[in-house]
């Protein structure tokens, strides 16, 4: 069967800008009009940093794959590229189907808007049509447990209420591929359990999930396979238990 996510030789280079070298707008404008694009400044090769270095793997339909690794290993960069937020420097990703990402709970929320308004707005940002949100509205509210504060601006919410609502909106989106970054590290234990249940339901629905987490218990609970990243390189890919073992050896 055709893989749903196919990552081929993916690399991402970042420039580490040093604060000292200030560039004048005039110089930059000159360069801009000469080259026609916002090209990478020359002569700074030594300040480059490879967040991802030649990563290749694929994920089949309905699979739940975990991505683990220490801080700064490139997990979030990988998800950002898959989500289309930032382009890779080289290599490519082929995706079959509609993708949604939960990179940060409540990224689309606006503090001044009410919970109700934010549900619709967040849905629109993530590409969910209005009637779809309306259809799922009751379920989203029910899952988050904020019925009584639906018409209160979210700036008055507790942080727990805020993330519960945020997770709830994203989890109810209809998409084929779901990218999740640390979303389970939110809410109290009861809500975390609810999240795990919801994730299992999503998995049963046959959607493909790429799940980044430091919560190894959740990873081994949900994922059949795992990818281990260290320093931007793919260290191991395979059965979750093996992968976690390899990760533990590193620590």
């Amino acid at each position, binding site marked *: 069967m055709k893989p749903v996510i196919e990552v081929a030789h993916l690399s991402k280079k970042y420039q580490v800008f040093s604060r000292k070298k200030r560039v004048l707008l005039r110089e930059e404008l000159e360069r801009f009009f000469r080259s026609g694009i916002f090209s990478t400044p020359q002569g700074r090769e030594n300040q480059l940093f490879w967040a991802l270095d030649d990563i290749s793997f694929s994920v089949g339909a309905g699979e739940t794959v975990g991505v683990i690794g220490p801080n700064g290993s490139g997990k979030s960069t990988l998800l950002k590229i898959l989500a289309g937020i930032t*382009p890779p420097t080289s290599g490519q990703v082929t*995706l079959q189907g509609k*993708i949604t990402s939960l*990179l940060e709970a409540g990224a689309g929320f606006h503090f001044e808007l009410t919970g109700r308004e934010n549900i619709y707005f967040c849905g629109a940002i993530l*590409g969910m049509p209005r009637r779809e949100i309306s259809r799922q509205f009751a379920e989203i509210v029910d899952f988050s447990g904020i019925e009584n504060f639906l018409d209160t601006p979210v700036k008055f919410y507790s942080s727990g209420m805020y993330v519960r609502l945020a997770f709830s909106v994203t989890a109810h989106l209809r998409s084929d591929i779901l990218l999740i970054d640390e979303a389970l590290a939110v809410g109290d234990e009861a809500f975390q359990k609810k999240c795990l249940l919801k994730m299992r339901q999503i998995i049963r629905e046959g959607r493909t999930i790429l799940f980044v987490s430091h919560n190894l218990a959740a990873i081994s609970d949900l994922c059949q396979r795992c990818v281990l990243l260290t320093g931007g390189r793919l260290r191991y890919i395979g059965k979750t238990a093996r992968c976690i073992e390899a990760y533990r050896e590193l620590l």
Partner: protein
Amino acid sequence: MAKIISQNQTSLPKVLQELWNQRELFYFLVWRDIALRYKQTIVGVVWVVLQPVAMTIVFTFLFGNIAKIPTGSIPYPLFVYPGLMFWNFFTRAVSASSESIVANRNLIEKVYFPRLVLPLAATIVNLVDFLVSFLVFTLLLVYFQFSPNLMGFLFLPLALVVLLIFTAGLGAFLASLNVFYRDIRFIIPFALQILLFLTPIVYPANLVGNKYTFFLKFNPLAAIIESAREAFFGSTFSYWPGFGLAALVSLVFFGLGIGVFLKSEKYFADIV
């Protein structure tokens, strides 16, 4: 359908397709802007009316009564108001859209959506204010018991469309430039202040010496405002060539602005 992510630029048809697919987002951004703007204000929407009226009063006093700028048979407030309508739309739209990417950095860094909706929505939302200030204009006409040419009302939408094209292009350009160089944020208020006086808003264009009228020709704002005023109050309408040139300049700005935006948008999430 397979979606391929690589370092290559997105093509224009793909961007247009995406914009069309997420047109609801556009509607929501405009709605959010309107919903947010007057939250926690006391007089709320009255601000929309208050601003052009206050400006008209101050300008009438300064340029009508003190400087005595000749406006023929037209009362000065009526003379200055249509220009201010267009000007306010322009300044608000340019200020808001140039900040739109930086102000929504949390979205840019965390979610993918066609980035172009941000400056475009920030521009379009000002049409609401324009409509309200136009209603105030009709009230002013009643108050001064002045009947303008019907041509003015017919010409107004056309002038607005050209202004919209110009503003959208300029706004998108400044929005992307602002991501890379925050100097833009300091230049804009200053540049707008200067432009207000370089554009025949508080004075008629014929007051400008022949030596300088050449420069007015390439300022789309000048042509839009001057021709709209002539359509409302003039005895003849001779402004088509000037207006045509303004439309052309606006289209060039639009193409360049959107082009620069689309070329640079892939770096937004990394730099903003």
